[in-house]
Each structure stands twice: as C-alpha cells, then as structure tokens.
C-alpha cells in the first residue's frame, strides 16, 4: 500500500517501523501506567470513593440528569435545524433587504461564544423583565442561536456546491424559485451535508455541558455534586470517570451515526458527485 507520505516499505523501513511501534507501545504504556499509579497511590480506587455510585437512588438521579441533558439536546437540535433552514433560505434570497440582515445575524451569532449567549439569556434578560427564563431555556436558546447560524452556513455551502445545471434545468421546465429550492436544491444539499449536519449535532450535545455553568442541573452538575460529597471521601475522580463515560458513550453513538451515513452516502453515486461540498463544509464546521 502506497500513500502520499511514504512508499511501500523495504526491509530497512520495515525494521524501522517495528522499532517505532515498540517505542510507541512503551511510551503509551508508561503514560497510562503513571496515571493509574497516581490514581492508585492517592486512593481513587478504594471502595469508599466508589460506594456512592452503588445506591439505587443515585442511579435514578443519574438517569434523570441524563434525560435532562438529552432533552436539552433534543429541543436545541430540532430548533437549530429549523433556524438553520430558515436562515439559509434568507441568505440565498434575491432581495438584499432580506439577505443582508440575515447575513449579519448569522455572522454575529457565530462570533459570540455560546457560554456568553447563555449568560445573556440567564443573567442578562431577567432584570429587564423577562420572567420565564429558566436555566433550561437559557441553554436551549444559546445553543440554538449559535448552532442555527452554523447550520445555516452548512446548508448554504451544500446548495452552492450543487452543479449549476440543476437550478437551470428547474427554471427551464418552468419552475419558480421556491419550487427549485424546495424540490431540487434542498433535497440534494441536505443529503450531501448529512455527515456534517450530524457532527454539528454532536457539538450541540457536547455543549449542553456548558449548562452547568449557568446552573442547569444536567450531568456535569450532578458530577460536581456527587464529587463533592465529603462523607464518601470527595470522590471527584470516580465521579469524573462515571460521568465522562456517559458523555463519551452518548457522543460516540451520535458520531457513529454520522460515520454510518457518510459511508452509506459514499456508496451512493448520486451523492458522491456533491462530495467535495462536504469537504468545503468541513471548514465551516468548527468547535
């Protein structure tokens, strides 16, 4: 197998590769070993520190917090997709009076950190007379404004990457602009952009953890609460391990969906034609 960086290895290169492999294993084992040694020496594996996670009530609380995290994610994900679609339609408008404000809106909300958006919602608005603001709403609105703007750019990149003939054919058979967008452009753009859209949803899921800073009682909030229980020897590290595993599993599941969609669409010749768009949009997808 040849790659850009190296040729098929000869006898010398094979020997060198084997030595490198051994060195890698040794270094990685040394780092892992050191971490585990420190964990053991400082007593992180004692039964006392893990006991709190054996109670059924704690399990129930963890499940509830996971559901709160997931519901914030679900609401924010749906709202971001809707907002993203609307913004992308606005940004592709023929009328500058719609296009320019929408462009300013997306650029603005892409530039403000999500945490600051959440803080504006949670700390900034209530003194102005907004009475219904809960931490949940602050998290969801903050996530929606940011990710909706990012997704708008993803949709737009998808549409702009389509071959021009697609739109021209639509107009040629007498379609109006709305029909061209709805029936020709968006279906293709969304299919081509599916992996990017899903990986942006992973970002939404990860960023729900910011809710902890604006007192939203989700997983990380609970992690800090249990980690600080002095009666159980302040099991902050066991707590990080437990809650970290939950987060990683949730995100990995979502990432796996993204990868599956990508592999599937790569096999589909109708979608591979617009595949370069995915590369272009990977530059849009940040964070």
């Amino acid at each position, binding site marked *: 197998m*040849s790659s*850009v960086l190296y040729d098929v290895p000869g006898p010398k290169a094979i020997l060198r590769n084997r030595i490198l492999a051994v060195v*890698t294993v040794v270094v990685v084992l040394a780092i892992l070993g050191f971490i585990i040694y420190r964990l053991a020496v*400082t007593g992180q594996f004692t039964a006392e520190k893990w006991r709190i996670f054996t109670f059924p009530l704690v399990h129930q609380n963890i499940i509830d917090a996971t559901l709160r995290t997931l519901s914030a994610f679900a609401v924010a994900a749906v709202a971001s997709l809707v907002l993203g679609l609307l913004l992308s339609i606005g940004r592709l408008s023929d009328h500058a009076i719609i296009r320019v404000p929408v462009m300013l809106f997306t650029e603005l909300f892409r*530039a*403000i950190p999500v945490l600051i958006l959440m803080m504006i919602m949670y700390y900034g608005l209530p*003194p102005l007379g907004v009475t219904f603001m809960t931490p949940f709403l602050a998290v969801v609105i903050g996530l929606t404004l940011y990710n909706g703007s990012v997704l708008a750019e993803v949709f737009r990149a998808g549409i702009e990457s389509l071959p021009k003939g697609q739109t021209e054919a639509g107009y040629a058979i007498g379609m109006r602009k709305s029909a061209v967008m709805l029936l020709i452009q968006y279906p293709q753009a969304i299919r081509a952009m599916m992996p990017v859209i899903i990986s942006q949803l992973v970002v939404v899921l990860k960023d729900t953890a910011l809710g902890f800073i604006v007192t939203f009682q989700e997983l990380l909030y609970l992690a800090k609460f249990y980690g600080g229980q002095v009666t159980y020897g302040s099991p902050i590290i066991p707590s990080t391990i437990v809650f970290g595993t939950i987060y990683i599993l949730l995100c990995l599941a979502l990432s796996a969906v993204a990868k599956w969609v990508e592999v599937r669409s790569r096999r589909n010749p109708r979608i591979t034609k617009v595949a370069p768009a995915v590369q272009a949009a990977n530059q849009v997808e940040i964070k």
Partner: protein
Amino acid sequence: MDPLINNLDIFVPAFRNTIILFVVSGVAALILGTIVGGMRVSPVPIMRGVGTVYVNFIRNTPLTLLMFFFAFGYPKLELGKLSYMTLAIIALSLYTATYVAEVIRSGFNTVPVGQAEAARAIGLPFAQTMSLVILPQAFRAVIPPLMSVFIALLKNTTVAAGFSVFEAGAIRAYLSERGEPAIVVLLWVAAIFVVLVTVLSLVQRRLENKWRVAR
C-alpha cells in the same frame, strides 16, 4: 459606553488573560496536534491506532468535562500545585489538539498520491519529496480550516470562567458585585468577541485567497 470605561480595570486584565489562554493553548495545541496528526498518517499501525483513539475520545468529550477534570480532579492526584490558569491551558490544548490533528491529516489527504509517486519516480529523496512537492500543497489546504479551529479556540476560552479562571467569561460575575447591569456588561463582552473573531476571520480570508490551490 460607561459600564465599559468605568470598569476598564476589570475588562482589560480579563481580556488579557483571554488572549494569554488563546495564544499559549494555541501554540501548545499546534505542537501536540501536529504530532498526533503525524501519528495518524504514519506507516506504523500502532501509532495510527493510538492517534485515532486519542482523537476520538477527546473529540467526544465536552470541553467543560475536560476542564472539570483538570480543575477539580487534578489536585486530588497530588502532583504538585498548578494555577487554575495553567490547568485551563492544559485542558484547552488537549482538546484543540484533536482538531488540529484532524485538519493536518485531511491536509495530507488532499494531496493526490500521484504527486508523491511522480516525485519518487524522478528520483527525489524523501526530504525533497516532502519539502518541494507534498508540504507546499498540504499547507495550502490546511491554513483555512486551521484558522477556523483557532477561532473556535478563542471562543472556547470563555469556558474557563466556570472553573475559577479570571477571563472574559468571568467579567459578569466580578461586575455584578459593583452593581453593573448584567445585560450591558455581557453585551460588551460579546461585542469585543465579535471584534476579535472578525479580525481572525479577515486574516483567514486573506490567507485563503493568497494560498488558494488552483487546480
């Protein structure tokens, strides 16, 4: 303007710390990310495996959780005291490095294999194949997404506010004690971020136009 001017003693050091977090973790992430990205395209399967595991695990962990571990968990390991600022830098660097690694890997992937094969065919040694044929092309493909990663890093520095680091995200908490209206303070913080991000985006656009690959 008043809430900003009256409280410059808070705004200036806070944003200075934001910039420090950004620059130091940016450099560290670039170094670590290049190493990991190099591992992910190396001919040694074990290196590729280690790189993949690292990238996939850290990428699927919220940055907030990483900071949480370093701010609250690290002191329990009794490895010597580090300031919250240093711990935040470590978390930001480890997190951002995965994105840098992915960008570098995809940069190499944009170079067609034929380019390297042609270079080898005309007898160029490894160093010249790299420096004259592959890196110049990979570099051009890498710059714009790399700038996106840095823009994200700049915004991510605010997360440190939740973990006792005095930077832009923490300004509100400090100024609420002085009785400043939260919304005005937060809008100023947001506005400064918009300016900083716009500057970075302009740099990105310039580099993009300068180095666009004409194929």
